[in-house]
């Protein structure tokens, strides 16, 4: 990959030639993994190798003689990559801790399933043993046969002869429909659904695969898609593709070439969308059903950037050692290793570019959403790219890459943004950052003891809060459902009508299950614009006990009400104020505002307001 190509990828100018090279690299990787797997199995699983892998490999090679492109397409599939990595990890030829839920033979035997798919599609006669798991087998690009089995795992047989294709188990035989399988659904056979869309002359086609066992690798349970669900997915794709193909041509073309399979994931909580890309399964992305067409377009852009950068890093390392230090990533609730920032920053950069263009179109409401998302993107990408640039973990190529990305975002920062969008973005960002700091940062105990002593002695603070040392702690993930406040702060610009409905109901359920969240009274007051009541509620919660969510809420509300010094301390160092407050509980329960004002130092005139509420 040339330096010119690398810079083009860094700034999102990804053309078809570069994508072809990256896909070729991934295909080379699959070829290499397959070659290594055959050899590793011959050494350490000789019986399975002879009985299963060799016949399967021979069948694939025979089909390749008839139809090279077909076999190449199958070997390039994401589930083939993740299968090979999984098996090589089991054979200890590749790093990783694979799940050992299936017998090794059944895992290795998946090559026979791939070979059968190739032979079925090529019309090449065969007769091969195949592993059946829980009574079923999924042929990549074709579908799932469910002949049933007497045990969880069983060897069955697949064949194609003059009577057609079929799969047999100890229980039954299932015929495999020939020809275009997408329309065929019967009791014991279901084709893998395909989603497709065409807009402005640009077409896209995805598999929607909720069956293949080697695509179940995205860290969250898959969702099973029924016929109604399929319609919803198709509807989202059609809407998102219309947006992408008409307004984001280059991105759309990249998505159509890079992503081939969507793996439906279950939302861990209503209105908590998830998406994921895994390096082992290039070409597939995992995602829950997005809320609307714009959200789907955003997810496709986001995950496509992950996939592209992953392929780049297969060709050249962009980061070196030392990436384990934990830090803040504005798009995650957990503490992230700094080495992970590159992937996240690049995906967010792609999304920010998407909103930059998108914000120029549509109704006033749509433009406000676009402006706010663009502002949030910049707020996330600019500092993380700067942190990466100074982290010392980037290789020379990595420095080039991040430098090009920073230059591009610097030019975006000069673009005008409406004040309303800036405020909405800043408030969401503050809420997230304050919650993260309160959850993951631990102030240095010695520094805190000196602050306690100064407070008790009625002195000035021993040091400004920004000078207090902090360490990052990896804490358990927040409960599923996340923060209702965070969700509603975003709902203000993502779906203002629904937000207004929610406000009109005074935070009571509006008939939409996504809004059926437990919303604290202080949060409700904040979101309804009653800042005095919100502050009172948060202060009451803080007085009742350690409550990071309440401190973060107070940080948000004090941005509205001031005083400026208190607002600044709560926004920038909420963990110091909260920790000091806890330490002083033994000496009475100090007022959090008074404590924050004291930490802010004498320079701040008391009562000065940052903004009219």
């Amino acid at each position: 990959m040339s330096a010119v190509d690398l810079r083009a990828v860094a700034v999102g100018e990804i053309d078809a030639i570069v994508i072809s090279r990256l896909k070729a690299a991934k295909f080379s990787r699959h070829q290499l993994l397959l070659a290594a797997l055959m050899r590793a199995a011959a050494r350490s699983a000789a019986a399975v190798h002879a009985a299963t892998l060799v016949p399967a490999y021979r069948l694939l090679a025979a089909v390749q003689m008839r139809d090279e492109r077909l076999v190449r397409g199958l070997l390039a599939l994401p589930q083939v990559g993740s299968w090979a990595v999984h098996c090589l990890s089991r054979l200890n030829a590749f790093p990783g801790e694979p799940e050992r839920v299936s017998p090794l033979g059944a895992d290795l035997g998946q090559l026979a399933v791939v070979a059968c798919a190739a032979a079925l599609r090529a019309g090449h006669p065969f007769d091969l043993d195949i592993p059946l798991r829980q009574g079923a087998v999924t042929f990549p690009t074709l579908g799932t046969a469910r002949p049933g089995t007497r045990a969880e795992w069983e060897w069955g047989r697949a064949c194609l002869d003059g009577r057609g294709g079929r799969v047999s188990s100890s229980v039954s035989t299932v015929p495999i429909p020939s020809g275009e399988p997408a329309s065929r659904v019967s009791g014991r056979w279901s084709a893998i659904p395909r989603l497709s869309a065409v807009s402005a002359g640009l077409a896209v086609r995805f598999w929607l695969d909720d069956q293949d066992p080697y695509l179940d690798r995205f860290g969250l349970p898959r969702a099973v898609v029924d016929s109604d669900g399929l319609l919803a997915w198709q509807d989202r794709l059609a809407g998102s593709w219309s947006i992408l193909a008409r307004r984001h041509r280059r991105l759309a073309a990249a998505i159509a070439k890079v992503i081939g399979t969507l793996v439906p994931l279950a939302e861990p909580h209503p209105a908590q969308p998830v998406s994921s890309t895994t390096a082992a399964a290039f070409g597939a992305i995992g995602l829950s059903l997005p809320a609307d067409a714009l959200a789907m377009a955003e997810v496709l852009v986001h995950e496509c950037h992950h996939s592209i950068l992953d392929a780049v890093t297969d060709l050249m390392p962009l980061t070196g050692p030392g990436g384990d230090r934990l830090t803040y990533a504005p798009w995650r609730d957990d503490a992230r290793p700094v080495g992970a920032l590159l992937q996240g920053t690049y995906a967010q950069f792609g999304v920010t570019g998407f909103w930059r263009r998108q914000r120029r179109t549509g109704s006033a409401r749509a433009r406000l959403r676009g402006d706010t998302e663009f502002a949030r993107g910049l707020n996330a990408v600019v500092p993380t790219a700067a942190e990466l640039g100074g982290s010392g973990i980037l290789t020379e190529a990595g420095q080039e890459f991040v430098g090009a990305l920073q230059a591009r975002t610097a030019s975006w920062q000069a673009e005008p943004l409406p004040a309303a969008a800036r405020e909405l973005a800043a408030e969401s960002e503050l809420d997230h950052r304050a919650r993260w700091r309160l959850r993951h940062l631990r102030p240095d105990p010695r520094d805190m003891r000196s602050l306690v002593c100064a407070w008790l002695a009625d002195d000035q603070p021993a040091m400004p809060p920004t000078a207090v040392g902090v360490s990052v702690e990896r804490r358990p993930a927040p409960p599923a459902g996340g923060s209702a406040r965070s969700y509603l702060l975003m709902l203000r610009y993502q779906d203002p009508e629904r937000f207004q409905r929610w406000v009109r109901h005074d935070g009571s359920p509006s008939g939409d299950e996504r809004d059926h969240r437990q919303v604290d009274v202080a949060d409700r007051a904040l979101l309804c614009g009653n800042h005095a009541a919100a502050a009172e509620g948060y202060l009451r919660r803080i007085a009742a006990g350690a409550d990071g969510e309440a401190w973060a809420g107070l940080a948000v509300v004090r941005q509205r009400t001031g005083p400026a010094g208190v607002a600044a301390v709560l926004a920038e160092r909420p963990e110091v104020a909260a920790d000091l407050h806890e330490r002083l509980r033994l000496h009475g329960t100090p007022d959090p505002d008074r404590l924050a004002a004291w930490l802010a130092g004498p320079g701040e005139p008391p009562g000065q307001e940052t903004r009219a509420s």
Partner: protein
Amino acid sequence: MRVMAQAKACAGKILAIKHSSRRVLRRIITENPAEGDSRMPRPDPDHETRLPDLTELSLDQLAALDDSVVANMIRVLADSRRDCADYQETFSNFDAAS
């Protein structure tokens, strides 16, 4: 210009592989030694390349590759992956622990 030159060089190598027997393939690999390892293909002159180009190999040709060549290639790939923590394997907008 650089892209054209690379494309030509790549096409030449592919043609050579296509018409190759195992002997020819082995010669291409050993005559393009990477620094520090004589069995690896030479990396791209612009940037380090972790992966050899195996796109044009048929399954029969893949099976005919020397075990040692494959083992060496996979070691390089595995080492690069071993250096990567989990966070560089899966990229998600949620905490996998949740």
